[in-house]
């Protein structure tokens, strides 16, 4: 099952490579990974999406917790949560395609953020399946380039992951 694990990590050189290294050493799978400092500059927030049986996920969280630089972590998929991913897509846009793409972008509540005579660059945010849906809707033949940030997530309600 797909899981979103959110980690508070000491913002130190080498800390990220320890997390990434752990996944490859123990044969776990990273689907997406995002990381950036938090409002407290000594801490980074890292979100990793992974998949595996409950047993594997339990090991992943325990092994992550064992890393000295991991301060706290939570499996967001255990409770209600919000997940977002941002995508930039460069699309071939000429002739009648231009209006069609514009319509699709509007339906997906995206924005066209850059325009040339033959290319639209579209920005889109949402959960990963929405981004997948957009790619399917415009069709891969028109896509010139795709860049996705990977998933970030946060728990719903009053639950917070902080020190």
């Amino acid at each position, binding site marked *: 099952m797909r899981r979103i694990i959110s980690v508070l990590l*000491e913002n130190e050189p*080498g800390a990220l490579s320890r997390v990434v290294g752990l996944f490859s050493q123990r044969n776990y799978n990273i689907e997406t990974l995002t990381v950036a400092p938090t409002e407290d500059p000594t801490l980074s927030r890292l979100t990793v999406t992974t998949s595996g049986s409950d047993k594997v996920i339990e*090991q992943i969280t325990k*092994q992550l917790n064992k890393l*000295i*630089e991991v301060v*706290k972590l939570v499996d967001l998929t255990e409770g209600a949560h919000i997940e977002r991913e941002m995508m930039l897509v460069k699309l071939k846009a000429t002739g009648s395609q231009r209006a069609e793409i514009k319509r699709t972008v509007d339906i997906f509540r995206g924005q066209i953020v850059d325009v040339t005579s033959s290319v639209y660059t579209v920005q889109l945010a949402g959960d990963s399946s929405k981004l997948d849906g957009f790619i399917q809707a415009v069709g891969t033949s028109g896509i010139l380039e795709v860049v996705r940030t990977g998933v970030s997530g946060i728990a719903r309600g009053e639950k917070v992951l902080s020190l």
Partner: protein
Amino acid sequence: MELLSGADMLIRSLQDEGIEHVYGYPGGAALHIYDALFRQDKVKHILVRHEQAAVHMADGYARATGKPGTVLVTSGPGATNTITGIATAFMDSIPMVVLCGQVASTLIGEDAFQETDMIGVSRPVVKHNLSVRHPEEIPEIIRKAYYIASTGRPGPVVVDIPKDMTAPNERFEYSYPKKVKLRSYNPAVRGHAGQIKKAVDMLMAAKRPVIYAGGGVILGKASDQLTELTRKLGFPITNTLMGIGCYPATDKQHLGWLGMHGTYEANMAMHHSDLILCVGARFDDRVTNATEKFCPGARIIHIDIDPASISKTIDVDVPIVGPVDAVLKEMLSLVKESKEKPEADALAAWWKQIDEWRAFHGMRYETSPDVIKPQEVVEMLWKLTNGDAFVTTDVGQHQMFTAQYYKFDKPNRWINSGGLGTMGFGLPAAMGIKLTHPDDEVLCFTGEGSIQMNIQELSTCKQYDLPVKIINLNNQALGMVKQWQDMNYESRHSQSYMESLPDFIKLAEAYGHVGVRIDRKEDLEPKLKEVLAMKDKLVFVDIYVDRFEHVYPMQVARGSMKDMWLSKTERV
């Protein structure tokens, strides 16, 4: 406040940490540090002949004393040569700090001479590693390194020290931190009271219980508590290879050790038990055999300091995360208070069954009128040393024979590479022990394969006068490899035969030691007595043993715990 250079701060920190010995090898990036070492005499440096041996020496010291060992090497090859030793310590959770020189911080990333990314290279095999970025951080980093290495589940910590951090011309205020606080590292100090209570209730209700103890009992210094609890309960106890000595092997409640080459009675008792109390062990594949067939009728209580060890390979019913000594102590007081007692009839029937298993196999092997059996060499040395020696081994058949036939009644005396299985471990580990235990007998059981992996250390033994006894069970082959080839590859002995063995007697003599060859059975006892009488000499004892002997019992691959070969022809 005193002003010291980075190198002087490093050595002073080691002094303040109470470090007596550092095992190492100098080189370019570590020269400032070596100069600081030279200008003091509190911390003694032992110069090895290969960096891997320095790590095993520190490891042997740590296993025998429970205190962290310390290694000092230079950058590049000096650092990479330590990796096998670090991985060995990591797999067996041995506390250790490895100080590595590094090229100057201004050169890092430029492929400078003797530059290796030691932080990156060591990452998968350390508990943690730290890099010095400002010289004034050195005391705090050293304090942190020893704290992390020796608390919680212990393990090796690497400290990477760029050369410019130790430059002699820059001085800083020195003070050694008394305490270290890490917001992200807080090992458990006691177990969950509710879980402990639940566990004790299960112990009292068990009909076919068995205690399965591991290296964690020795690392957690909990042998006394375990022994008391086991005797109080009257339960049978077995331990892992790493747990040897955590409970007296000659005690009647002890079933010997379990797993791939464990005793028949230990494996049978585990398989047929209804309750397993696992203390500081990790259900390793060399213990469980096929996990899906593991102990089908048993409920399991698992005490471990490391939450990640719990339900990693085998699901457990009652996990207790905490230091084994504290948890066992709490259990013991609950057992003492409890009005309930384990059911005497059920326990008596269980013991009757176990005694039958014991009588059925009982660690027998066939003796021969003229060929020396490796098992009898071990048994004889056990008797001749009153079972009280520090014993190290390398890896292979000799390791298993030693574990089976030398009965350890005390912890910290059986020293072997259990997790990683590192050939070349035995001699340097023995040296690390002899250095700090000069009056104790230190034996290194080895084979002609393993001993050649770190034989250069005979030179270090001469320099520091380390009269260990090397017991080479020479079967002229890589015995364990050959055994597997006999059993699984129709005796196709691919590369398991050692041609052109050196004359070990001459080799020992060339290094300034004594060599003794034993190849006749009638010579075994008198010559071994002569060897042990040479208290102040390193003696290399080259013993020609049966070339065809196999280690039994041996679990059948992919079977359950009870599926074993008991000899070349008997399978149960």
